[in-house]
């Protein structure tokens, strides 16, 4: 029987499909959720926690990505587990150890009832190729960043249906974009559902979405390849690796400035100073809390950043 498996952050969706289940990235409902969480630090985890516990999200089990990613998720995930949802905890190795990664993937496959359809590895690899091509299209100014962002972020669960998702990818318009500056968006994804559209309205073309790019960059056609690839998930390892990766992408994508999105009560906020010190670009730091359409404060910052990049020498 195919179950819907809630996932709290990146795990290989190809493995969930290969075990004949359907992943559902629980974060996807957050930006448009109307829930006002009862108790919260980070709104991302608090909102999906309440969505699940109030029975608004139809999942059969939950995989919590904890180690190397998010301790708020670990606690809120345990609250969900205590409410009776079968829950598995997945840990990335901070030291990128391939054996540890392989053992975590095996443990996950066991939780999901074992691999039954190896062909899914290849199918999803093919889709990720398409995702990478789409990403390149916006780097080449031939696709809107808002369209590409929503496609890339959906690679976390391939919208529960790889075949239908492929059709979605094929309908993304190829269109020449005009803008005043090229920017990168680093950090966790913004909780504002309209962030990319608002940035576009101020002439900012987002040519790099750090986290969603990981969703298409990582993959593999068998368990060993998956372990070799996912152990390099940049968010889970030392920040030096992330800086190196970001620098390389900023250069390759010819960006003019960097926007660092931070989430209220998220430990990644502490990384702001490190990025500012190590990235040789103008950096705008913005912060979000509850999911809402972009605030006037955010708009002022994006507008001012766009002007700074364009007007100031």
């Amino acid at each position, binding site marked *: 029987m195919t179950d819907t498996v809630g996932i709290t952050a990146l795990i290989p969706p190809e493995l969930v499909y290969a075990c004949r289940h359907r992943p559902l990235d629980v974060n996807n409902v957050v930006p448009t959720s109307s829930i006002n969480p009862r108790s919260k630090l980070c709104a991302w985890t608090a909102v999906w926690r309440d969505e699940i516990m109030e029975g608004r999200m139809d999942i059969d089990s939950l995989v919590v990505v904890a180690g190397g990613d998010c301790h708020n998720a670990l606690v809120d995930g345990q609250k969900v587990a205590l409410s009776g949802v079968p829950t598995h905890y997945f840990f990335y190795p901070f030291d990128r150890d391939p054996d540890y990664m392989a053992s975590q993937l095996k443990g996950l496959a066991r939780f999901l009832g074992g691999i039954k359809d190896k062909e899914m590895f290849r199918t999803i690899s093919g889709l990720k190729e398409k995702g990478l091509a789409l990403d390149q299209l916006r780097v080449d100014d031939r696709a809107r960043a808002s369209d590409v962002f929503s496609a890339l972020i959906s690679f976390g669960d391939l919208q529960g249906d790889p075949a239908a998702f492929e059709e979605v990818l094929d309908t993304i318009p190829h269109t020449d974009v005009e803008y005043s500056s090229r920017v990168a968006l680093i950090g966790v994804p913004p909780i504002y559902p309209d962030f990319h559209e608002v940035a576009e309205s101020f002439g900012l073309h987002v040519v790099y979405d750090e986290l969603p790019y990981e969703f298409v960059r990582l993959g593999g056609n068998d368990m060993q390849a998956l372990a070799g690839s996912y152990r390099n998930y940049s968010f889970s390892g030392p920040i030096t690796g992330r800086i190196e990766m970001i620098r390389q992408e900023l250069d390759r994508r010819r960006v003019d400035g960097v926007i660092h999105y931070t989430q209220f009560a998220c430990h990644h906020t502490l990384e702001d100073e490190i990025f500012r010190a190590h990235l040789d670009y103008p950096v705008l730091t913005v912060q979000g809390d509850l999911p809402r359409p972009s605030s006037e*404060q955010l708009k002022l910052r994006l507008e*001012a*950043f766009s*002007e700074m990049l364009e*007007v100031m020498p």
Partner: protein
Amino acid sequence: MNTGLDVGSTTAKIVRLESGIITASKVVPSHRWKELLEYGNKWDTVETIATVETTEAIQTPEATEIIQATETTETTGTAETIVSTGYFRKTVPHTAAITEITAASLGVRYYIPDAQVIVDVGGQDTKVIDLRNNTFLINDKCSAGTGAFLELAAHYFDIPVESLGKLHTRASRCARINNTCGVFAISEMISQLVGGYTMEEVICGIHQAFARRIAQMIPPVETVVLIGGTVLNQGLVESFESIHGSTVVVPPSPQTVNALGAALYGKKLRPEQ
């Protein structure tokens, strides 16, 4: 001729620039911003545009016509470009609108070409702009370190906010105020008054608490340019200088520097003026 119009949360300012020289400037309370457009003797076209009141209205065919008419006349050298800035930049007449960040950067550079860090203390927010790497920080989440904090203190003593600076100079010592949250600072002020400090000494303490809050937002730098109406308060400037440890430069007319920046932006748009 280029006009910069800065309509902020507390005051509205105008600066007129002709051939790169400031020929007029004026400050009025925000709600009287329309007076600025009547001020001076060459504001004909501006007055016509002043009948347009909202951003939406500016997009109406009539408004477009007015703006186009402005542009046509400009080529003959008789009309002007209005660049607006400030919180209400999009709801007042404008040929172009820019944020206060850009306006401050351009305005300050007019007086201090090698300025590094600008601190703009506004009525409702405080902005720190680092011109060395085109980055900025805005505190608009709480009143701490904004003009609203000083308003609150002045209101408590029932004195005009403009008198705070003068009263500060009469203090022979400073009461310690730790809180920068407006609400908690008031109760701390009261306990210092009860404890024997004078009003002047408590005001000095308020300025120091204010300066500490702003200093936290500023990156290490030797010289800081302070702008905004609040910096006319000498007590505040002195407190900031002693707490942050940097040299403070206040440009001439710190209150109209953003309006000047807006006018200069107009000059960038139409260099021939």
